[in-house]
């Protein structure tokens, strides 16, 4: 058949074309450099690499109107892949976008390479805009380089389904719920009561053990690393306590066992598979995108156990980018107080900018999505109560490993002790 005969030739041509394209690309990047920075009116495209929706679409439009020569292009990868790509591109010295987001759990992994980023302290940024707990992880060890501008942060709350609470005979008023669920022990105990009294036996108390564990561990003064940067997963009793608490709740059948941030999780929101979710501010878009299909409503109470931070991000500008100067200006503008305030009131991302917390339009903000709960007040309080936790290079991966271990309990594959042992082996593989 004639089609088969042309096969190898087309493949060869394809390979040759790929080769020339590659040479062209590498040729471009080596000659592109930073010459373009001197002419402020030259038409340029700034690329922004993110790992989820930061709610920036409208802001880009506004920025492009103010700067007619600039076009902003956003790319998104999922969180793990995004940070791996950034690491790889930093090492290679090329391939980074002009602006790159970094999540707080991952930021410590970039600290040693602070010199590869633009130092914002030398570019007219006042670090006092943020709380020290936000700027410290994105600074070099000696504090002379600030390589990340704080975007949002994860002040925490407890989201709960007031209709399901009512059906199970629990209080529905958010102050009463806050008073009932003061700490995680009370939370787990109430969960047991909920399961016993809820008329709908398909509803569980929370979405997934891994997610709950993230919330609990975020409140500990020390997590996976000590202040000296040494991993202390096995030595720190707080980790084991949090692990056992969640494992116990799973054993009592409180977990729906649905992995967070998966399509199944979205379905879980719609089909009312769980009554509570530990929710940092940035998670609210999940509730917005997946309203319960049985007409139930979400409400928001204080998080058991007090303050804590879970998540939140930074914008950084790698020096290897093509338009570092313009990118620095864009990053500064996106994280400026006016824009951060707008992102909170319109998209629900709580600002890391500390002066905003006491501003009336932030502090008094209520969200109709959560039955008009005073989200501004709840997240501000949580952020003010926050005690910064030492972060380490592999914090995010260790969290994932422990989350996986809890998942394996949910899947009925092992018990708390077995899962803990496996998790420690995983941690050994990560740091060792």
């Amino acid at each position, binding site marked *: 058949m004639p089609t088969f005969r042309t096969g190898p030739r087309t493949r060869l041509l394809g*390979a*040759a074309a790929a080769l020339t394209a590659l040479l062209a690309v590498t040729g471009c990047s080596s000659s592109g450099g930073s010459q373009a920075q001197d002419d402020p009116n030259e038409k340029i495209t700034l690329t922004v690499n993110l790992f989820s929706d930061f709610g920036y679409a409208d802001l880009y439009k506004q920025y492009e109107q103010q700067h007619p020569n600039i076009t902003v292009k956003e790319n998104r990868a999922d969180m793990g892949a995004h940070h791996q790509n950034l690491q790889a591109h930093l*090492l290679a010295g090329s391939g980074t976008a002009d602006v790159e987001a970094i999540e707080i759990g991952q930021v410590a992994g970039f600290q040693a390479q602070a010199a590869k980023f633009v130092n914002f302290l030398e570019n007219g940024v006042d670090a006092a805009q943020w709380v020290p707990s936000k700027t410290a992880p994105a600074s070099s060890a000696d504090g002379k380089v600030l390589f990340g501008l704080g975007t949002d942060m994860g002040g925490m709350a407890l989201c709960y389904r007031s209709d399901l609470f009512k059906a199970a005979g629990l209080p529905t008023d958010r102050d009463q719920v806050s008073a009932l669920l003061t700490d995680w022990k009370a939370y787990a105990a109430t969960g047991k009561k909920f399961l016993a009294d809820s008329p709908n036996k398909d509803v569980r108390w929370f979405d997934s053990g891994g997610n709950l564990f993230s919330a609990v561990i975020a409140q500990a003064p020390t997590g996976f690393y000590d202040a000296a940067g040494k991993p202390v997963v096995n030595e720190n009793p707080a980790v084991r306590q949090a692990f056992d608490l969640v494992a116990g709740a799973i054993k009592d059948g409180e977990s729906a066992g649905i992995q*967070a941030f998966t399509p*199944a999780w979205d379905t879980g929101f719609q089909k009312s598979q769980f009554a509570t979710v530990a929710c940092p501010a940035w998670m609210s878009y999940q509730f917005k995108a997946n309203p319960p299909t049985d007409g139930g409503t979400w409400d928001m109470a204080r998080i058991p156990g007090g303050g804590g931070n879970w998540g939140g991000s930074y914008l950084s500008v790698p020096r290897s980018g093509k338009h570092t100067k313009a990118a620095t200006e864009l990053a500064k503008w996106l994280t400026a107080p006016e824009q951060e305030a707008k992102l909170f009131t319109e998209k629900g991302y709580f600002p890391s900018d500390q002066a905003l917390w006491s501003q009336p339009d932030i502090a008094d903000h209520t969200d109709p999505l959560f039955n008009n709960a005073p989200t501004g007040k709840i997240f501000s309080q949580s952020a003010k109560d926050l005690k910064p936790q030492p972060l380490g290079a592999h914090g995010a991966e260790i969290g*994932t490993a422990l989350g*996986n271990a809890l998942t*394996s309990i949910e899947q009925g594959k092992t018990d708390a002790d077995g899962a803990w042992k496996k998790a420690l082996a995983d941690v050994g*593989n990560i740091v060792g």
Partner: protein
Amino acid sequence: MAASVSAGRPARAARAPVAAHRRHRLDRTLSPYLYIAPFFLVFAGFGLFPMLYTGYVSMTNWRVDVPGSQGQWVGLENYRKLLDDPFFLNALKNTVGIGVLSTVPQLLLALVLAHLLNYRMRGRTLFRLGVLLPNVTSVAAVTLIFVQLFGRDYGLINWTLGLFGVEHIDWQAGTLSSWTAISAIVTWRWTGYNALIFLAAMQAVPFELYEAAAIDGASRWRQFRSITVPMLRPTILFSVIVSTIGALQLFGEPMLFGQQQDPTTGGSQHQFQTLALYSYNQFWGRFKYGYGAAVSWAMFLLIVVIVAANLIAARRMKGLDA
């Protein structure tokens, strides 16, 4: 192709026979190398060099979180570590398990399918092209759809099983259940591809053999067993080798099948972490370049060994025949 290029030459050659003869000889000896050069240049740049460089990296202690470790020579230390790395051995077990679970049914199905496609029937070409369709679709798209089908709470497969009174299966959770699900994806994608290869070989089988068998009263099934399969032996061996290599490199399906936050862990307890996933996990997830490279090279060596074993077995079989 080559004929049309040199078609205009002989007329000129007559004028200066000696020089032309020499040029012709040079052309004949050199041209073939020039024609194949692009492949070997590309292969040297994008195949051989990365492989050798990976081999070099696998003997260093290079990892991102240890500054200055780039050139630290450790010899075969990384390979020694592999031998008592439970994660590596687990990945090896998973790779072989999933490989057997997917390759065996896939090739058997392909053989049967090719046999059916070999019959005279209406719209034959359409069906023959149709079996290739699954292979044309992207791994990512296919896997994402299969993940939905194999969903625990609202998946179509569990729903169907539920009609027969089977409890919901958490496909991701178990070792065997996750292997089965991943094998289903692989089998779905590659059965048609192998079927076409078998079909091509079947068409080379002399029709007279079937005719004679039919006259002797052999059933279709008997013809398939006693004529088709023996005549196809070299083709089957080829498919086995290619599928085995593919199975040992299995990456996309288990990666996307996992619902964990870090997709390279291959399940909550690494129950479906394959060698390729583990290599990626160590190299790009943990940034242990030296160790990750060692895993890659171990994979390569493993493939060489298994393919060699296949060939030796094939030679033995041939020997028995003769």
